[in-house]
């Protein structure tokens, strides 16, 4: 189980839904960049797992939010970040300029894990940044999407003072 948490892992990732644990086979970063909705990750599971999850969802044993939460937990495992941060880094990675830099650096998304890929994208965007630019990038990355505002700062180590400082920096103060 612990190996799935390791940044360099190529092992399956557990996904816990409705009290059951299913194994999601390792996928390269390239495939994670194509995720648009939670159900895209569910489709990667094998047939029996999809059937079991479909049955629980249909019966109401599992809510849509619970299913989304389970997928988010997986995204946090594979990217090593809050799920929306990982998702944003994956989305940023396929923008032409960022992808161009990564390609020139020889980083192959079909060989790298989502964890490694996100780390590379983050490093690319912060390596020449001064403190203020880095704080701005971190702040934009850390803002939770609509509906998940309450999760801001949970396990992330953010504190109100740091957030205020980052906000002031971001706003040009």
């Amino acid at each position, binding site marked *: 189980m612990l190996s799935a948490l390791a940044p360099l892992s190529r092992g399956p990732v557990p996904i816990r839904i409705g009290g059951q644990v299913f194994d999601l086979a390792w996928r390269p970063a390239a495939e994670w960049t194509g995720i648009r*909705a*939670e*159900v895209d990750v*569910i*489709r990667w599971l094998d*047939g029996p797992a*999809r*059937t079991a*999850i*479909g*049955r629980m*969802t*249909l019966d*109401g044993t*599992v*809510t*849509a*939010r619970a*299913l989304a939460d389970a997928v988010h937990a997986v995204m946090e495992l594979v990217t090593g970040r809050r799920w929306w941060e990982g998702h944003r880094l994956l989305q940023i990675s396929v923008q032409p300029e960022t992808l161009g830099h990564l390609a020139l650096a020889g980083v192959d998304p079909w060989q790298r894990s989502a964890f490694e890929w996100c780390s590379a994208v983050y490093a690319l965007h912060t390596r020449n940044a001064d403190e203020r630019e880095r704080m701005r990038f971190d702040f934009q990355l850390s803002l939770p999407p609509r509906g998940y505002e309450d999760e801001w700062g949970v396990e992330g180590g953010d504190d109100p003072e740091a957030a205020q400082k980052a906000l002031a920096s971001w706003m040009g103060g």
Partner: protein
Amino acid sequence: MDDTTTIGKPDLKLTIKGTEYPMVLPDADTLSRLILVLGMDATMELKMEASGALIRACVGDKAWTQILRGVLKGGLSVDDLFEGVHGIAEAMEGNPPADA
């Protein structure tokens, strides 16, 4: 978008093989769950069950019984039901349920 299938309007209707059924919008969780099942490449059995549940949730028990009779008598096919689901999905685009 077809005016007969616009969710949120009082004259909302679902058309299945030429027959119009008054349609109401189920709660957001029910809609989300059923659409998730349809989207997860589950078995055909689950897909059909979810389709039926979705149509039933939208048109009510009485109309659903009428639709089922149509299927049993051979007047309606599984594809017609899937077409109905497609109509619901189209109607939902840009018209999310109020409690979503």
